[in-house]
């Protein structure tokens, strides 16, 4: 039986974490959550391997999610990095492009778009088989 793709979801809003966990677990992903950048950094540097990291930008302070994205981009293998934010700006989008994150979404999130993008990116990396939800 193939292993479930593993996701780390990072947001300081409990409701967002709860909703994303609910929706993505239903789609067959194994979810770990973190409510701060610091907690997420500990997880990724503590031998936890994630296929994708989905993070908010503004948590402990403005645009700190970019620090997590930058740290994640240096991991081997590099996980898929998806950013979502309610405070999108040219500056933070430019930063995300510089780190070569894989997906950038503005809140309120369109969950179907997010799920489709996540699935497409995981399939293209070969982390899940084509056709599997």
């Amino acid at each position, binding site marked *: 039986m193939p292993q479930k793709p593993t996701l780390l979801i990072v947001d300081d809003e409990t409701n967002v974490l709860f909703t994303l966990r609910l929706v993505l677990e239903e789609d067959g992903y194994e979810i770990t959550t973190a409510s701060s950048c610091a907690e997420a950094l500990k997880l990724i540097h503590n031998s936890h391997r994630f296929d994708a990291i989905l993070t908010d930008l503004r948590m402990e302070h403005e645009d700190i999610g970019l620090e997590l994205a930058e740290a994640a981009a240096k991991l081997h293998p590099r996980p898929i990095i998806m950013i979502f934010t309610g405070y999108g700006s040219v500056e933070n*989008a430019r930063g995300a492009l510089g780190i070569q994150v894989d997906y950038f979404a503005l809140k309120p999130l369109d969950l179907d778009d997010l799920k489709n993008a996540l699935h497409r990116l995981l399939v*293209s990396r070969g982390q899940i088989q084509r056709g599997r939800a």
Partner: protein
Amino acid sequence: MSAVARQRMALVVHPDLTMLSKYQALLAGAQFSTVVARDMPTALLAITQHYFEVAIISAQLGESGDGWPLAGVFHLVFPKSFVSVIVPGADLLNLQTAINNGVQEIFEEDRAPETVVSEILAAAARSTGAPPRNRSRLQ
């Protein structure tokens, strides 16, 4: 075993013939063999025929924004290659679209082609870990 010497290829897609000509000349100076296209069907045909290491695509070909899906297709076909898009302005929407299509860099359309090509070559070299190869043939 010896490496196969093959000229590096670039794809430039832009509706303006003058711009195509400028980019082609600049890339030729950096030892790239360049395929140019003014529309989406020609660009797609080129993508099926060659292995491109670099692409410069205008965000507006036939109509506003139709360069983006072409850039997305390029990224899917050549995930290790460098794709850049020429945009009217580097606003939030264009940056977001660039990220979501796997584009590595965007350039505003008023930037000089010389600057664009020079930055692309430097960035492409950084992303592949290879030094820029201006004026040097593949060994």
